[in-house]
């Protein structure tokens, strides 16, 4: 976290992840889910909410234990903490949204190795109080979810003509199935990154 000196640390923690430090579009971290689970908006949203849950829980635990964790065992402590909440999240998805759990498949357990979560534990939760850590987790998680949904929206629209299972394109639209495949994920992400770079350069950010 890099709060600017002249702003409220709580609002900085909450809003930085949405745009200024958006994990996908600005920091380019944790790119496995944005490439893998963005074939449609529903799985992308489920993945985003799962990441928010894991991020908030792990940041709470790490923040509470930050004065007790020895520096040389901190990475393994973070990993154990994250793995616990990912396992719990996976079980909840299997129990309450089995179809979504099936669609997301191995990508839910793979949240354990998502560098966004361990990065926030290291950069924010291990150095900040409980409130700032929670706000940071919510903000970063929301920014991550937003970027997943934007990517998924573009890909679902171009690949099927639908968004959120609602028909958007006219009947005459010929679906471009390449956008459902990995190549579609890379192309969409690349184009969005280019667009964001163009916009931010114009603004001088």
């Amino acid at each position: 976290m890099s709060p600017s000196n002249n702003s409220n640390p709580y609002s900085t923690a909450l809003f930085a992840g949405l745009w200024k430090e958006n994990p996908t579009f600005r920091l380019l971290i944790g790119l496995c889910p944005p490439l893998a689970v963005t074939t449609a908006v529903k799985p992308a949203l489920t993945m985003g909410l799962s990441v928010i849950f894991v991020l908030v829980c792990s940041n709470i635990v790490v923040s509470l234990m930050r004065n007790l964790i020895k520096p040389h065992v901190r990475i393994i402590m973070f990993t154990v903490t994250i793995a616990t909440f990912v396992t719990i999240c996976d079980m909840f998805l299997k129990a309450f949204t089995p179809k979504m759990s099936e669609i997301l498949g191995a990508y839910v357990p793979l949240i354990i190795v998502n560098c966004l979560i361990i990065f926030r534990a290291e950069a924010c939760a291990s150095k900040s109080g409980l409130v700032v850590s929670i706000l940071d987790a919510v903000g970063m998680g929301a920014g991550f979810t937003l970027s997943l949904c934007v990517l998924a929206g573009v890909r679902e629209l171009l690949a099927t003509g639908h968004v959120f299972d609602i028909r958007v394109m006219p009947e005459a639209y010929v679906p471009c199935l390449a956008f459902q495949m990995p190549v579609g994920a890379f192309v969409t992400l690349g184009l969005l990154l280019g667009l964001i770079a163009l916009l931010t350069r114009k603004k001088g950010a």
Partner: protein
Amino acid sequence: MSKLKLFARESWLLLVSSFVFGLLIAVTNAALSDRIEQNKSAKLNELTKTLLPNAEIFQPVQAEIEITLPDGSKEPARIFEALSADKQRVGWSFMARGSGFSGDIELVLAADRDFQKLMGYNVLVSSETPGFGDQMKNDYYRNQFVNAPTGQLTLSKTGDPATVDNQIVAMTGATVTSTAVVNIVNTFVVQIKDQMTKKGLIGNVAQ
């Protein structure tokens, strides 16, 4: 002794946390495992019922039936006897799996009450390419397995997919997936039929 003290001082938090986290996972698992199992069974029943519409009860077959996979490994077959509401046998269902174009394919297959004809398959797990191998879920390919004989099936590139025989017409642009599905069906159906016949589970096979 000092080493032990050092170990305890440096790692007590990790040990305590691991214990607490393990407990947390165990409690969650205890609370949700029944529901997760119910979901799995419900999905399996739902997929099997589309193949055997008259089936109401799926009773696991207790006899040990072992399948030899193409790589030489062996695994126990999961077979269910499908019964109607009045406990009459209406068919059999079983799981089958194998390698596809991108990852494993898992199918649920059904056969008629005498194991003479296939009643079709449904896809449990697959990550085949959308628009290509993914067509294995479409009726065009699936319907060729309905009423096909429970013997060796062969794959052909041309032919009439509407004809019911042991020739399966491949999906255009998805030869690997087409071959994979036929191989999975051949591996499991033939072995299950042979072993069930030997064990006397299907009696009137010669008819």
